[in-house]
């Protein structure tokens, strides 16, 4: 017999080595000596986390899940957009009443122009208060920093002589500056 054949013979015998049967009472004896496991809550959580899970997915289930996710994302997006709009609208809704006044003995008309109205005089005509001898206008503007001037007789822009701060307008003249905070109510 060749060495190789002897080796295979030996391995074949090893594969079929006889085994003896254990006594039948082995299992009952073991079971009689053990008590049910009493695991803590966290031990159960840990055990569940470590236990491999089988997830079966069918196209039908997948489509349902995708649909639910899309609907949920849509709802979240809608809510988020509405919420943002509300916040912006609320911010815009906060305006502060401001009174402007100008003394000018030569003026036939005075309009208020500034960065809050795009420097357009239309709709911002000031009225002459004969008792105070002042051109006046009350407007509501959101809090912020604004430049403004008075347009006299539709052809001459002059800064507010009562303003405390001025800014060069780049045309050899100055604009008045006003700072409005949310709790301000300024009368100039």
């Amino acid at each position, binding site marked *: *017999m060749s060495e190789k054949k*002897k*080796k295979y*013979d*030996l*391995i074949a*015998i*090893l*594969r*079929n*080595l*006889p*085994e*003896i*049967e*254990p*006594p039948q009472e*082995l*299992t009952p*004896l*073991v*079971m009689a*000596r*053990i*008590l*049910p*496991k*009493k*695991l803590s809550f966290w*031990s*159960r959580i840990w*055990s569940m986390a*470590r*236990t*491999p*899970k*089988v997830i079966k997915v069918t196209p039908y289930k997948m489509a349902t899940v995708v649909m639910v996710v899309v609907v949920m994302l849509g709802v979240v997006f809608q809510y988020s957009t509405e919420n943002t709009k509300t916040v912006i609208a609320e911010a815009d809704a906060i305006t502060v009443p401001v009174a402007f006044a100008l003394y000018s003995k030569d003026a036939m008309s005075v309009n208020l122009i500034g960065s809050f109205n795009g420097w357009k005089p239309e709709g911002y005509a000031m009225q002459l208060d004969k008792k105070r001898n002042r051109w006046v206008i009350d407007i509501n503007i959101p809090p912020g920093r604004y430049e403004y001037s008075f347009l006299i007789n539709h052809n001459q822009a002059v800064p507010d002589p009562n303003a405390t701060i001025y800014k060069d307008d780049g045309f050899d003249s100055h604009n008045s500056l006003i700072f409005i905070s949310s709790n301000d109510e300024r009368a100039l």
Partner: protein
Amino acid sequence: MRVSEDSRTVTKVLNGDVNAYALLVKKYQKPIYNLMYRATGSKEISMDLSQTTMIKAYENLERFDQNRKYFPWLYAIGANLAKDHLRRTNREKRYFDSKYDEDNTIDTNTDTMARIEHKTKKSYVLEAMKNLPLSQREAIILRFQKELSMREIAESLSISVSGAKMRIHRAIKELRRILQKTDIY
């Protein structure tokens, strides 16, 4: 990843279903009992050690990694208990009976040869197996009878994979050396 039946049973046991453990005991009592019998040669001691193995495994079930196979883990517990028992009793080389000397070789004198002549090849192998150290014998049992992978054998015997390969190689070599002294091999 496929969840093995054993892992599912272990999960049930860990969740308090003590009866589920009977499935694992029944499934693996035979190899564990045979491990003990090969180690001790005593059915009574094998019964005690098998029970101890199963109970110790139950007590330590939380430590079992459910991504691994249950049998090598259980076998490692059993093998350690068997080694501890042999160490305590100092009987490793006398586990079956006293037919063989303690020098790990078959007596080749005429009487002994006459006694074993009628035996089959399997008997020769069985006799030769008795002369292997427990560690080598269990390695080839796990490899060829239980058909475990090298990694599983390493786990079962608490050794490295290269250590398992070496043990099997040496066991086969030793078996062949013993068997070459007979006129059959």
